[in-house]
């Protein structure tokens, strides 16, 4: 963690900072930065979640289904 290139600074309004500081008292978050990092990761993950999932080609999917059927996993 000594490598300071791993972190960078962003600016947020001072009143927001104070509000968060107040909010995280007595929680597991040790700093406003910790909290903001947590929330941003959560939001980014939920956005990525909504992106379309990659799908298999029809042909490959049929092949997989045939194998699953042969193994008794599906009827």
């Amino acid at each position: 963690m000594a490598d300071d290139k791993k972190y960078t600074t962003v600016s947020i309004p001072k009143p927001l900072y104070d509000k968060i500081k107040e909010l995280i008292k007595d929680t597991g978050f040790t700093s406003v930065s910790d909290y903001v990092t947590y929330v941003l990761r959560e939001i980014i993950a939920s956005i990525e979640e909504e992106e379309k999932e990659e799908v298999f080609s029809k042909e490959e999917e049929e092949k997989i289904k045939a194998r699953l059927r042969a193994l008794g996993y599906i009827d």
Partner: protein
Amino acid sequence: MVAKPHGGRLVRLVSSEKTKERILSEQNEYPRMEVPEDIAVDLENIAWGVYSPLRGPHNSEELSSILDTMRLPDDTPWTIPILLPKFEGDFSEGDAVLLTHKGRIVARITVEEIYDFDRKEIAQKVFRTTDPKHPGVKRLFERPGIYVSGDILLIEELPNPFANYTLKPHETRVLFKEKGWKTIVGFQTRNVPHLGHEYVQKSALTFVDGLLISPVLGKKKPGDYRDEVILKAYQTLFEHYYPKNTAVLSFLRYPMRYAGPREAVHHAIMRKNLGCTHFAVGRDHAGVGNYYRPYDAHEIFNEFPDLGITPLFFREFFYCKKCGGIVNEKICPHGEEHRVRFSGTKIREMIRRGEKPPEFFLRSEVFDVVKSFENPFVEVEE
């Protein structure tokens, strides 16, 4: 929709028949390195996307990042380094090297980096101890502290007697879709199911569409159940006690590290790659001895709001004579004197003596399955 693969894309680094033939015909031109079985299994897991987004063993930058932040350099959660020690061989960065196990060519690696790393630091950060008695630490210390990174290509899989019950991520994903399951909970195990397991699974199943029983195939200690016993026991349990089309079993070949909390997160990531949306985390998950506190493996998940698979935390289930049923601390107010704890060890001892455990411990159908094997337990280290 089943879970998105970790890091966004399901990795597939498996050679086509043609490429395989070519590599095998040119095999004498490549340097080689023999690797132990657990590493060969890691290579397979990389190739089939169980470790997505990994494309090969970690490099030094990734390793440092995992140790210090429990994330890859691009911020993707990752807790267990996947390392390839340089056991032998005369090769350098940029070379393509064939990785063999018992002489069989398992994979080719295009060497990106060869680097030294302090094994004590790895041990302390991954296992929270440098005690060489810890099985994960022991293995780490027995091997060279020089590591090889680079993309791999799987050439040939290791033999697997349970290949038909070991589905790959692309197969479980199609399976879940065919079943019509949108939410799936993964359950990791190395045991024949007793009622405590069944209640965890069924509590989880109450809230999701399907259950994936995901027993780990790997090295066993004497006294562990044989894999075929686990398989048969679950098949019987499904038949008699689970509604049709709610549960499937697929083995996962994976070398346990016993890294407790960090490994619990890794277990969840592997099940996410298999398509699970939820993962059951039990007491002392992936722990060994007294290295971790019973619920450390629950707390660690607080660090990962972006894991992409929802952990379901379970306390221990037990039988309460006063409640007259199987309960846990959250729903039973009675004292210890009323409670009968499930103990895998106790059940095993009873089975060894040919005694039938009480019905609230082990289903009699399951007991019959176990009993039908001449020896349901592993006798010598495998």
